[in-house]
């Protein structure tokens, strides 16, 4: 549990951070809250000769809500997400989900940027961001670009982000309708056995939009277009939910681990998705 030697950089602005990245390329990694990266370094599963700490870069912090858009700086901690009342009013699912991540100590350090950039299928924010149809802003030597969360994840720890880019902010629309983040875990501080983010809007009792995304049930977050399609236009009754769950289950591919074998995970996933849809629908 002792990392190998590394150089520590602490730039004051984005230009400084990008410069170190450009200089060291593959040998450099940015450090946010460190609660995913540092354990990997201590296990010597990640070898990072140059560590670039982003904590002094003011531009990466803060939550802004304007014109129906929510913009969150990458270095905003999970604790800050939970504590922000304006954010809670604009997108209550963020607090509901964040409270189910890790434990308070981890949440004081862990950031939204680190959580979505990490690419670990166990992270809760990626699925949530897919549910919300968030956009990720990436900044590199060549400038900025925006990638939808739904297109960002390629495989475990593989994302659209280039090694020399920094994820600077995340933005999504102020939420309408009902929502739920449902997660089963073995204990506090555990990654999901199965988790599901759902957002549902209804008009006159009919679902007009639905968004179902899942965590830790495949090597990337799973956004289930099929489940969404099943729900839209229905009243979201028991049979509709059942059909949506069936559709969502078609999209997952869980693997066996200490949480249990595949059959168990699939069964639990079905229950968790169902509960998430029910709860979101009841709030819509």
């Amino acid at each position, binding site marked *: 549990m002792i990392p190998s030697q590394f150089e520590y950089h602490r730039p004051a602005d984005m230009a400084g951070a990008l410069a170190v990245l450009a200089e060291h390329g593959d040998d450099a990694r940015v450090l946010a809250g460190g609660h995913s990266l540092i354990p990997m370094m201590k296990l010597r599963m990640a070898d990072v000769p140059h560590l670039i700490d982003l904590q002094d870069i003011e531009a990466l912090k803060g939550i802004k809500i304007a014109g129906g858009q929510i913009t969150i700086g990458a270095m905003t901690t999970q604790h800050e997400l939970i504590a922000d009342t304006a954010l809670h009013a604009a997108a209550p699912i963020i607090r509901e989900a964040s409270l189910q991540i890790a434990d308070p100590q981890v949440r004081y350090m862990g950031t939204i940027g680190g959580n979505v950039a990490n690419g670990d299928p166990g992270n809760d924010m990626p699925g949530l961001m897919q549910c919300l149809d968030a956009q990720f802003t990436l900044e590199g030597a060549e400038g900025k670009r925006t990638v939808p969360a739904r297109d960002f994840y390629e495989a475990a720890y593989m994302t659209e982000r280039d090694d020399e880019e920094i994820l600077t902010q995340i933005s999504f629309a102020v939420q309408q309708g009902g929502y739920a983040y449902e997660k089963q875990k073995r204990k506090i501080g555990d990654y999901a056995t199965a988790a599901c983010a759902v957002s549902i809007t209804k008009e006159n009792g009919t679902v007009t939009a639905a968004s179902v995304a899942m965590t830790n049930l495949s090597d990337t977050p799973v956004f289930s277009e099929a489940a969404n399609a099943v729900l839209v236009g229905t009243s979201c009754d028991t049979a509709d939910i059942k059909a949506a769950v069936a559709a969502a289950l078609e999209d997952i591919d869980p693997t066996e681990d200490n949480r249990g074998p595949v059959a168990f995970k699939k069964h*639990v996933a079905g229950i968790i998705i169902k509960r998430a849809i029910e709860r979101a629908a009841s709030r819509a």
Partner: protein
Amino acid sequence: MKDEVTRDERVANLKGLGCSRKRVEDARFTQGKGNYIDDISLPGMLHGDFVRSPYAHARIKSINIDAAMALDGVTAVLTAKDLEPLSLHWMPTLAGDKQMVLADGKVLFQGQEVAFVVARDRYIAADAVELVEVEYEELPVVVDPFKALESDVVLREDLEGQTEGAHGPRKHHNHIFTWEVGEEEATNAVIDDADVVAEETMYYHRTHPCPLEPCGSVASMDKVNGKLTLYGTFQAPHVVRTVASLLSGIEEHNIRVVSPDIGGGFGNKVGVYPGYICSIVASIVTGVPVKWVEDRMENLMSTAFARDYWMTGKISATKEGKITGLHCHVTADHGAFDACADPTKYPAGFMNICTGSYDIPTAYLAVDGVYTNKAPGGVSYRCSFRVTEAVYFIERMIEVLAIELDMDPAELRRINFIKKEQFPYQSALGWEYDSGDYHTAWDKALKAVDYAGLRAEQAERVAAFKRGETRTLMGIGLSFFTEIVGAGPVKNCDILGMGMFDSCEIRIHPTGSAIARLGTISQGQGHATTFAQILASEIGIPADSITIEEGDTDTAPYGLGTYGSRSTPVAGAATAMAGRKIRAKAQMIAAYLLEVHDDDVEFDVDRFVVKGAPERFKTMGEIAYAAYNQAIPGIEPGLEAVSYYDPPNMTYPFGAYVCVMDIDVDTGVTDIRRFYALDDCGTRINPMVIEGQIHGGLTEALAVAMGQEIAYDDMGNVKTATLMDFFLPTAWEVPNYETDHTVTPSPHHPIGAKGVGESPHVGGVPCFSNAVQDAFRPFGLRHTNMPHDHWRIWQAANSLGLHD
């Protein structure tokens, strides 16, 4: 002098027996001022780290240390070859086996110590570990003890051809011992003739004590004076000194062993680990102090595990439910070396307490110890030697028998309890239970939880479930346990030949305060608080004026250490006895000062008074001063005493626990709605400390029953080596505990105390487990193995067709 303080106030001022005195240790612990092994830093100290085996079974073809030695800051890399000339490449275990210190030709479990790197700092040591090149040739891995007994694969080649082990004949090259207690034929006959027989096989999974602080040591060999000082996480510092002397050849008076503050032990810190030996050798080789502190993964992978017992039982009864016989066979997976920490004559500890709290006339127990490619150990994780296994076994067998008899398990227990008037009770498997009043405790517990009401609620829930109105079942877990603690009488209990007495030495200072030193060592139990209370009541000096010191072998009297709830039964008894010696001398001094005969004064709280003339007295403070400042004819100056206490018997704490649990059948998620724990530990020294011990023990019981395990895959890889997968409960998972008690003093202990630190763990595990099993009883479940994590509960529900 006029005494305006009432007698009650004088009693209160002592903070003696029965007082919920705040823990004196906590001031330093809560302010970060504890002094743990990793806080120790000596001038010039080097740091050690291990190269460990990635394989569970492999031959070592070569070890190349050149690259590691070439790294700047590396002082030495030790391998078995370096230890061999000192005969330290292997070491004896507490169980009569031997264990490799560093891999000698082969490795037998994943995480085994292969080489010891010594470097200027901890970081260089870790880098150097990566540079040691070890060439392995993989060998077939055996992780299943049943397969081990049939396998051609010889794990312990060093024992090849040895058909006799430390505990009798070995049946197979992977077999360690068979241990039998009781009457096999008579038991079989009773079972064959019985009205009703219940049979079950259960696996008590492998787990780990996982103290917050892992193990470590700092060795400092002073070559000029020939003295070795060894600091370490030792639950038995004196035994470590003796072993270190025997192994190293350094005379015992030249070795000083110090246990500093210990961050939890739970049995994990009883044994001797390769790290300790390597730090000593490295200090001898380099001439400077060497520190070794393992990390969490090393602790979970390589230091002593607990449990790993496959238990098969048969229990017979009359139609009315009176138990007639009990048969138990255990296949005990000991891993690669038999390093169980048990008294020498008990290779399966006190597993023969498995008749539990019941009057079972005929019984038989056999235990087969087996080698596998897993880490060695077999320690008593928060319990007396294998008592948790025994209690789990009998408390599950009772439940299975209740199913067989179609009887309420509370009632089945009641009609089989040993009766109050039967104590002292001789059990069929050889123990003499000192005292108990089980019926009173049981009735109190069932009443407190409204047992009948719970059963009615459960029946309604089952009906609602069957009607499809709920997917949550309710389980009522019962357990009644009897512990056997306080090892133990020297006539039958020893560790490496050392009788399991314990000791206390008291010095009263002239101004009426005192220091007492004991052979035990606190690891969170609060000895500094509670032993001072025992003394306060015995010698009339306030607990706040008594320092308790443990853990330094240069100053403390010889003792066997702290584990198996032995501190209060043994060292606590020694403390009371030493206190009585002080009091006897104080009485003579008081009589002299009061100018009366010795028999004319009597002890009263904090003074000796002239019988019939309470206004004539000498306080203990006055007596202490007199002991040092004046010549008293016929009495030596000073006021000191030492007592070595050999307990006449073990003590037998008991308790009645009830757990109410709701279980989500679809996800396997559990919610512990209620946990009631009644403990009877005899005389209660400090109710608050007792309550703290009970909360802690129950929480570790929750852990073990509900998720905590050391799991291996078929290749012998440890699957649960981090706290992400190894379940260590936090406040979040822990239910609210309701504690209660009865008081049945031990008749043979000087103050009637029995020990309590481990009871809640012993009784808690079957209680949590029984709650899970009970929830599914109406659907035909007989038994499902722990740990009851979500997927195993789900699997139980699934196999009963509850997901169809």
